């Protein structure tokens, strides 16, 4: 770990810890959505970025995770729509939900193994439509169109929910559901990120990149291509499932409609914008795509060209859409490494300037430009 990386990590960690003490709930919620998106995007980046398998159906696995958790954790309910549930302890439910997403990915992997490129992309697109159909018809599991409430996670008696009867106050700041979930989100994201980085930097990562770049060569070199492809698909689905569980916990209500095509496409946009094939890229892209519309909405009154709701002109939501569409195009045309590549370049430049300031003589020494 280099000195600058260390400093960066410390700054980020400090920021992450301090944020819930300052920002109000809606910022925390946006942050949590971004974290969930980042986990999902890391998974998709393993699949699409690192292994070259186009998946447009990632939202389906998020849905499996979200509804899986709700079903495993809820108690059955009688009512206008009777709802099923297993009433398991919530941490168990969360783990099972992630596994279930993996199983769903595993069930689809025979198809995934047979198809490539565009065919795989559109076949996974079918998952979205079939998933929507299944979710709105499987009312006892999903609550139908309206979805169902999400039981809060409870670990060793600590509840990740608002507890008005027994408020938790730390340093004078009341800790509600979002403040508590914030730390859970950070832990999950960190774990998911480190694991994925391990995978990418190790042997499996190299094998995945070979499959992406030269599938036949990978086969010749003795990489079990089919097994890897299926394995990565399952792993990526589990990341999706985990993201789904976190989103459900933040939402407090899961609704089938949410897990639609737009969500799936936004995940693809994230990994492209952030940078294909790396963990940091996925995180940067996720933050960009999920925070952009919120920032524009919030500051629409201060921004030129953006009108208030109800007026003629480009509204904040539309501006965000256009910007994020443009970002995808611009990144592919001009920033082959995504925002991550840009960040690395800037960092390199700053480091070089810092390094060259005291000893200008050495500035002629070539610096490796192609660092990951």
């Amino acid at each position, binding site marked *: 770990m280099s000195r600058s990386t260390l400093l960066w990590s410390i700054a980020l960690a400090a920021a992450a810890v301090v944020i819930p003490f300052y920002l109000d709930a809606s910022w925390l919620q946006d942050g949590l959505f971004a974290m969930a998106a980042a986990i999902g995007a890391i998974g998709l980046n393993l699949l699409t970025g690192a292994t070259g398998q186009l998946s447009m159906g990632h939202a389906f696995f998020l849905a499996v995770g979200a509804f899986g958790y709700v079903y495993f954790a809820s108690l059955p309910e009688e009512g206008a729509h009777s709802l099923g549930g297993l009433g398991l302890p919530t941490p168990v439910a969360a783990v099972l939900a992630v596994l279930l997403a993996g199983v769903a990915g595993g069930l689809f992997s025979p*198809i995934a193994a047979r198809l490539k*490129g*565009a065919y795989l992309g559109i076949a996974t697109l079918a998952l979205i*439509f*079939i998933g929507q159909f299944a979710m709105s018809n499987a009312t006892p599991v999903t609550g139908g169109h309206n979805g169902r409430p999400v039981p809060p996670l409870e670990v060793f008696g600590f509840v990740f929910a608002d507890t008005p009867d027994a408020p938790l106050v730390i340093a004078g700041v009341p800790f509600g559901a979002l403040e508590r979930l914030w730390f859970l989100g950070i832990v999950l994201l960190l774990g998911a990120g480190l694991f994925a980085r391990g995978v990418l930097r190790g042997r499996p990562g190299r094998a995945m990149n070979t499959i992406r770049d030269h599938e036949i060569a990978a086969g010749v070199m003795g990489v079990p291509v089919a097994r890897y492809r299926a394995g990565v698909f399952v792993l990526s689905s589990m990341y999706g499932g985990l993201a789904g569980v976190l989103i459900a916990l933040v939402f407090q209500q899961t609704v089938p409609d949410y897990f639609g095509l737009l969500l799936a496409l936004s995940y693809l946009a994230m990994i492209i914008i952030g940078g294909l094939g790396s963990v940091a890229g996925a995180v940067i892209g996720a933050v960009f795509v999920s925070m952009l519309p919120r920032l524009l909405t919030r500051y629409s009154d201060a921004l030129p060209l953006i009108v208030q709701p109800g007026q003629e002109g480009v509204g904040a939501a539309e501006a965000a*859409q256009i910007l994020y*569409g443009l970002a995808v195009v611009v990144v592919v045309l001009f920033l082959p490494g995504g925002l991550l590549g840009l960040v690395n370049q800037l960092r390199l430049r700053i480091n070089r300037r810092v390094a060259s300031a005291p000893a200008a003589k050495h500035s002629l020494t070539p610096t490796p430009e192609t660092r990951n």
Partner: protein
Amino acid sequence: MITFIELLVNGISIGAVYALIALGFVVIFKATEVVNFAHASLLLVGGFIIAKTHEALGFWAALLLGLAGAAVLGALIEFLVIRRANVVNHSVLAIVTIGVDIVLTTELTRQIGTEVLALGDPWGSEVLHLGAINIPLARIAALLAASAVIAAFLLAFKYTNWGVAMRATAEDAETAALMGVRRGRVSMGAWAVAGALAALAALFMCIFPTPGLDRTVTATAMKAFPAAILGGLDSTTGALAGGLIIGVTESLVGGYQGELVFLGRGLGDVAPFLVMIIVLLIRPAGLFGTRELARV
């Protein structure tokens, strides 16, 4: 029986319109190996131009303008984005087209606003009565126009220099280049043709049985994806077959929903995708697709 025939004819005519869109996918895929997710916006722009100009220009001139407008937009996307994107992985190009689509669709739907725009077609809500069978005139027009355009397209594809260059490029871009084929021109032409086909499809998507053009039209472009895939992304015949299969499936499943209730309601929308998955399980490159091409 009458219901069945009505549903079948309806399905075939919708299928012909899907085939127009699917052909656009196929042409672009053959020329540039890109799956074009910006097709929805080509559809929208064609319809929008027709809707906005038919009152001033008359329907036929507006239609021509719509076709030309969508063709120009297609060519522009190729020229400004696809050609300049220097990527190895074609999945990335597909995602770029998603970006393009988001930008264009957002702006166009903003322009359309909350209106339902009429396209000023000459067929109105008239219906042809053949004994007990009723078929809207607009549907017959769709069937005839789509068949004529598809036939013309297939002939051009087979017999013109443009078609030969397209097919040569699709089969082996490097060798085609060695023959002096200008790849840029071929792919730009493909995008333009796809745009025009989409505009024509937009016309028939937005006239009677449906009330007019509004922001939801883009959703229909999604249904042409399974059509193109199940036929085989690199096969023009496949696009035709795929379009018809999807149209007829959708029509029949919708019409016999009552009898199919055990499968869950609202099946009509998913049926195309289910059919597609089943076909892909048996033939991973689609019904008429070439196997190697699936490796891209």
